[in-house]
């Protein structure tokens, strides 16, 4: 990137549209600035005081017409900015289209851990294909972070205690900066990495190359499910002390307080870390141990992948 270029590289479907809006804002702001500067300059020169004996100017108290004009016209222009900016924001931040490639990212002082569904792991590197929507699920082990790819014109805060998701579709192969944008402590400015965008066929090769020895996320989750002893109570036939997890994910769950909750990633996560928060109807409290502080975010991601696979 040229140091003076206004635009960083564009590598996502969102980037071009955001640059177009940005250009519109620059033009409007430029015209407004020029108008005000010119008016100040012209008035200052044309009406400059030539001598101390210049007559005192005739007073002009104001003009309702002018006041209304320069309130309403700029506001109408601002409404265009608002509408355009809101449309793009909703487009970029609404739930993703179908058939996304799901990748899991955990922020941790001061690195990015990336987990692929096929089981590969990377640190401070993210590989994505062009032409396919990629959904990122963001988790934090500690403090706030923000996952920022300038070439995609997108960022999203990574909030400890919850999952944030967002998606993008990469367009141009290349290597692009990945930054942490939310101050996260000592080595914040070292919490950086690279996003590698590849054509789909190259991406498949890359994935296959790393797949040797990799165990898929759901398989890793299954191992954890055994290791933590979950399997002893969450019997698949529904006769265990805890509810069966078969066909649970993605469906509504009846709770013992009478309400219903959607079994999404956040619900599964919460039920592992703090099982008594939302107990399924007909099941007792205080049976399952509290795993808060016992399982890391990457382990949770694997367990959730396993629970998801049980619903297939």
């Amino acid at each position, binding site marked *: 990137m040229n*140091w*003076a*270029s206004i*635009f*960083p590289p564009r590598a996502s479907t969102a980037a071009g549209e*955001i640059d177009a*809006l*940005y250009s519109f*804002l620059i033009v409007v*702001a430029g015209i407004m*600035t020029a108008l005000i500067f010119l008016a*100040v300059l012209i*008035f*200052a020169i044309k*009406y*400059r005081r030539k001598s101390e004996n210049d*007559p*005192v*100017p*005739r*007073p*002009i*108290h*104001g*003009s309702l*017409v*002018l*006041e209304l004009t320069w*309130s309403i016209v*700029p*506001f109408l222009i*601002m409404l265009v*900015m*608002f509408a*355009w*900016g*809101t*449309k*793009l*924001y909703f487009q*970029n*931040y609404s739930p993703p289209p179908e058939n996304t490639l799901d990748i899991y990212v955990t922020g941790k002082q001061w690195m990015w851990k990336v987990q692929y569904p096929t089981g590969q792991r990377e640190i401070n590197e993210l590989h994505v294909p062009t032409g396919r929507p990629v959904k990122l699920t963001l988790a934090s082990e500690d*403090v*706030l972070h923000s996952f920022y790819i*300038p070439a995609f*014109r*997108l*960022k999203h*805060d990574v909030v*400890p*205690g919850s999952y*944030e998701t967002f998606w993008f579709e990469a367009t141009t192969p290349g290597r692009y900066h990945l930054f942490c*944008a939310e*101050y*996260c*402590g*000592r080595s*914040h*400015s070292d919490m950086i990495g690279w996003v590698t965008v590849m054509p789909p066929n190259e991406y498949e090769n890359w994935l296959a190359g790393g797949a040797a020895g990799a165990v898929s996320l759901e398989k890793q989750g299954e191992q954890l499910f055994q290791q933590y002893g979950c399997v002893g109570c969450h019997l698949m036939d529904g006769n265990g002390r805890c509810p069966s997890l078969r066909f649970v994910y993605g469906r509504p769950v009846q709770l013992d307080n009478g309400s219903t909750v959607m079994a999404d990633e956040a619900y599964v996560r919460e039920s592992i870390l703090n099982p008594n928060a939302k107990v399924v109807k007909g099941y007792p409290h205080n049976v399952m141990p509290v795993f808060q*502080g016992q399982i890391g975010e990457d382990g949770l991601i694997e367990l959730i992948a396993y629970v998801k696979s049980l619903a297939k």
Partner: protein
Amino acid sequence: MSTTLPLPLTEQKKNYLNEDYSWKSWLFTTDHKRIALLYLFSITAFFFVGGAFAVGMRLNLMTPEGLFDHETYNKLFTMHGIIMVFFFLVPSIPATLGNFLIPMMIGARDLAFPRINLLSWYIYIVGGIFVLTAVVRGGVDTGWTFYAPFSTTYSNTHVIVAALAIFISGFSSILTGLNFIVTIHKMRAPGMTWSRLPLFVWSHYATSIIQVLGTPVIAITLVLLGMERIFQAGLFDPALGGDPVLFQHLFWFYSHPAVYIMILPGMGVISEIVPCFSRKGVFGYTFVALSSIAIAVLGFLVWGHHLFVAGQSMYASMVFSLISFMVAVPSAIKVFNWTATMYKGSVSFDTPMLYAFGFIGLFTIGGLTGLFLATMAIDVHVTDTYFVIAHFHYVMVGGMVMAYLGGVHFWFPKITGRLYPEGWAKFATLVVFVGFNLTFFPQFILGYQGMPRRYAHYAPEFQVLNVMSTAGASILAVGYLLPIIYLTWAWKNGPISPKNPWKAKGLEWEQAPSPPPKFNFEHQPIVNEPPYNYSGEETETTDVRS
């Protein structure tokens, strides 16, 4: 005794400065003018402390690898932010010029609560001692925003001391605001109706409302932060069952309105300078006055625009975005009215007016780039980058500091009874303007290119613009040192000023000597003309249609 005897000549020269030179007469004064000067010296000291941290930051950013290690740099930007926001910008114009001028402008002998006014300065100083303690003991590394859970659980620096400093100094801000509100309501001279109030007073009235209503929220937030940090209360740290986004809501509920605490008084100064140096009343007085109130009210409803990427509901973000655009309208109204005031005026180029030109230009850029940030899709890309840094420095430094310097020059003859060297002052204005733009304009480009803020080290392609910014900062530093030198010199050695060197309107210029006596006026002023009545007309004249 109903007759007034003429005072002896020596008595007549008594003023608030020379009536008593003892240190007690300063430290125990209840004179709003002396308290204003106590504040002036204190905030100037903090400005240079905060500025020194900025110098350190800019030196570090000359190279991608940086000059300092991470810890040092993180503490530099944190202390720069805390000191500049809470110990310079928030008190800057209100506690100095506001304190000095509001009673004089409305024809009062003092503020409504002179002893509370002195108390507010002492509270400020206690807060200042705490913040300097935090600095001396090793500093704080949370950023001035104190985001949880980093500030509550992870940082091992002096967070509690710094939070206490802000907590304490907040009460000084509340007391100043309270004092101004009561004073403006109850102490106006006969004939000083609300529609005759100088716009400086209107803007301080709006500022005071925010100070009184907003500051308690930051105080509460900091108490909660302390409870979380010391007792693990479980408010903000998810590991303890808290919500980190809740902290952001609470923090910005004060800190966004606080931005208007930091700019409205500057707008008030510009509203005095522009008519004086155009020899013409302010265009659209009512609109300029009420736009201050509109800013104060709407300013409380936009805090969520700091959370567009924090996982806030998209629909909440949409509402915050719309209101953020709405708050831009009253600011635009002011800029248009100041510009229109010059139309068919008699414009002179004295130093205060040069600062007003600088303010209008830089505030316009700062305000318009605020629209970029209110536009959600753009904010997503540029939030937490140098674009935001550039934007708020255009408002806070390009706006507020320009207005502050303009105001200090404008009222310098009133405060000291002396004239400052006009040539040096004009030169310094130019240096400030050039240095400012060279420092901060490149940061807009850096921000859109994607350089995040609070980075001790950065990618090599960002270096050229960073070097430009550092070069600008060194020019800006000279621009800020010059006024300190020549104003200090002029205070002792400058030529004696006439009572009203600018031929300005307003009670503080027309009815009081320069410098004023202890109780401001020799006689109770009575107001019988509209504000900014430069043409000396008696009654309202006709409207001019465009």
